[in-house]
């Protein structure tokens, strides 16, 4: 890797805090998200001198800062960087770190820590953040000496972005920030105890190709691995050459354009009907960069039992973790798919694709049409998303929160470009959307960024409207207001006898809140105003909050009830 370090800095005596800034510059960081406090003040003081090189975005809460760093990382493919102080600052990062860990998002979090001589004494704002974050970081480390900062940060970036990416936390004591040393920076390219990816075994590729060539009813199930591995092009070529229908996990969405003729939609609990049903009819299941989450598999005992399974996966710990594979191709999927392509025979699997089409038509007639183009009744979430599609033409980055609107967005939003759906998949973190959308907009300023969020989730991190105001990031915020914690209410309706325990919400006036932050806003309650209001929002120069009153007791279907097999998916 090319180091961006200026010549004149090498060998100069710097403080640990200045070294932090220099290391970030050397790693190519341009933007970081954070919140200051006592134990990290030396670093903030150093950042004051580097405002041209390092743009610091001051969030309104550390959770906001880290979700913004996640949105930035996921939209750009770069490492997200986040800074916080010790104690409460550090613990406020934990939800985001856990989210990044389970969704394989590359992050480097830097936290301040009390003086090293105070460690373990219950000093003011001391928490054992290294201990607390250990189960949810790919790697973490505490630095107590200034001269150890460059090596720790270098290793942190290398670990965060290599192999299966993930969050790293580096905790730096205040004395290490103040200490001085002769600065040198060497990017890390190798850690002896760590194998980011294994070389692809040619024999496994040959076996995989044989199975694919022989298959009569193959089904590809893909996840975020395709886009983390930057293998979108290879992936598409494979599908087209071998005529393979493909369905996505929530994390894989947008790795294949949603309009592609081989894209069969989303898998899992609220996924599309055809790929769920046909998972239990295919003769070969080809999993690429996905990990068989329980929301995808439903009842594992009844998941694709009839099929042979090939698993392309970078993380050996995922192989055979949930589903026993017949052929495991361990390694980078771009490399693996490149090697696979020449071994595949041309196929079109017309009959098999027709089976998909038949079920897609069924889902469309019985469900999707009334969801996307209802003629009467309250506004549906689906029609709002469909209208957004028509205006943005699949070019926008869509960021969602968690709940019914998330499932609707994942089902109905259209994407032409990879990395354009950003959602909290593995952890399902409410409050993710608003800050993540801000981070995405800062990372991709030329893209339209639409935040689709529920009335519940938006209030979990609503303070980040302040960050949107201060940065001027033109995020379009679409609050789908059903006056309920909708997804929980849906479960109460279906599985708890409609006992709506603590899910009804009296909401604030969102326009007034937006106005307080100087953000344009509007509320839509009638179908006939929807299209014009959406256009208005999307054409508006700055950020905009549009609240849409949607049906209060609408449900997300189809649904695989917990404990059921994916092929028992219900259309109503």
């Amino acid at each position: 890797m090319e180091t961006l370090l200026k010549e004149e800095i090498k060998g100069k005596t710097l403080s640990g805090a200045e070294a932090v800034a220099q290391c970030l510059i050397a790693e190519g960081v341009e933007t970081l998200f954070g919140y200051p406090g006592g134990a990290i003040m030396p670093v903030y003081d150093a950042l004051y001198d580097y405002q041209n090189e390092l743009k610091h975005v001051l969030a309104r809460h550390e959770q906001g800062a880290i979700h913004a760093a996640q949105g930035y990382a996921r939209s750009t493919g770069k490492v997200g960087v986040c800074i916080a102080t010790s104690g409460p600052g550090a613990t406020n990062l934990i939800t985001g770190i856990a989210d990044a860990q389970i969704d394989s998002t590359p992050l480097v979090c830097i936290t301040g820590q009390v003086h090293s001589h105070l460690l373990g004494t219950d000093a003011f704002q001391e928490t054992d953040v290294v201990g607390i974050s250990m189960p949810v970081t790919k790697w973490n480390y505490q630095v107590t000496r200034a001269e150890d900062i460059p090596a720790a940060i270098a290793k942190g970036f290398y670990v965060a972005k290599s192999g299966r990416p993930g969050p790293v936390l580096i905790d730096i004591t205040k004395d290490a920030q103040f200490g001085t040393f002769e600065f040198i920076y060497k990017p890390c390219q190798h850690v002896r105890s760590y194998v980011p990816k294994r070389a692809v075994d040619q024999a496994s590729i040959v076996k995989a190709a044989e199975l694919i060539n022989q298959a009569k009813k193959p089904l590809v199930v893909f996840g975020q691995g395709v886009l983390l591995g930057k293998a979108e092009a290879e992936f598409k070529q494979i599908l087209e050459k071998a005529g393979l229908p493909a369905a996505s996990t929530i994390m894989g969405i947008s790795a294949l354009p949603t309009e592609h003729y081989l894209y069969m939609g989303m898998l899992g609990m609220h996924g599309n009907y055809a790929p769920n049903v046909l998972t239990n009819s295919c003769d070969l299941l080809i999993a690429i960069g996905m990990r068989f989450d329980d929301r995808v598999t439903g009842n594992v005992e009844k998941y694709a039992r009839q099929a042979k399974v090939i698993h392309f996966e970078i993380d050996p710990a995922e192989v055979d973790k949930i589903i026993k594979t017949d052929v495991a191709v361990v390694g980078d999927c771009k490399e693996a798919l490149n090697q696979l392509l020449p071994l595949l025979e041309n196929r079109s699997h017309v009959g098999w694709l027709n089976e998909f089409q038949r079920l897609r038509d069924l889902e469309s007639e019985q469900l999707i049409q009334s969801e996307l183009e209802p003629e009467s009744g309250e506004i549906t979430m689906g029609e709002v998303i469909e209208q957004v599609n028509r205006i943005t033409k699949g070019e926008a980055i869509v960021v969602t929160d968690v709940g019914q609107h998330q499932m609707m967005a994942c089902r109905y939003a259209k994407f032409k470009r990879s990395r354009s759906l950003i959602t909290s998949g593995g952890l399902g973190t409410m409050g993710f959307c608003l800050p993540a959308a801000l981070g995405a907009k800062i990372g991709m300023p030329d893209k339209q960024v639409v935040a689709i969020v529920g009335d519940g989730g938006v209030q979990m991190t609503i303070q980040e409207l302040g960050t949107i105001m201060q940065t001027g990031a033109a995020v379009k915020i679409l609050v789908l207001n059903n006056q309920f914690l909708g997804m929980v209410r849906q479960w109460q309706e279906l599985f708890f006898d409609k006992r709506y325990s603590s899910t009804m919400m009296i909401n604030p006036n969102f326009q007034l809140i937006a106005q307080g932050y100087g953000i344009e806003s509007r509320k839509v309650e009638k179908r006939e105003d929807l299209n014009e209001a959406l256009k208005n929002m999307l054409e508006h120069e700055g950020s905009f909050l549009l609240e849409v009153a949607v049906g209060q007791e609408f449900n997300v279907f189809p649904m695989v009830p917990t404990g059921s097999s994916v092929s028992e998916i219900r259309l109503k």
Partner: protein
Amino acid sequence: MKKQYTISVFTEDQIGLLNRVSIIFTRRHINIESITASESEMQGIHRYTIVLHEAEDLVMKVVKQLEKQVDVVMAFYHGNDELIHQEIALYKLETALLVSGGKVEKILREHHARIISVEPDFTVIEKTGFKEDTQRLFNELEPYGILEFARSGRVAVTKPMKQLKEYLNEIEITTLKQ
């Protein structure tokens, strides 16, 4: 089927790694029967020897998750037949019990136990062996009164001859190839 397995984990010598290693077990609600940490034959590399009673399939998944940790060099698991392993036990008895020709002395001789410290009011006995061996001695001494007892975790070396260094070389080669 659950069986006794021994997991050997080789790690960089770093603060907090024991925590990282044990989290993998606690997350899956696995009970560790014993754990021993020590240096290995390579400088700067530590080894943990962890004994547990679980199904092989689960042990395999745990080993992969251990190996995935950035600062873990290698992790293996072995059944008892692939290992040479021992535990050490210390027994504190009243010195008065050890009169020569007495019953306790006879028990100690039969068990090949050693006297490692004699004080006026207590004596410490040491026995190394499998857990069953040290337990049998415990059972026989118990009626006479054991003042204190401690048993170590398992230490083990594997029968397969491949050395840690060779594994390390292999990793170096695969990573450098990229």
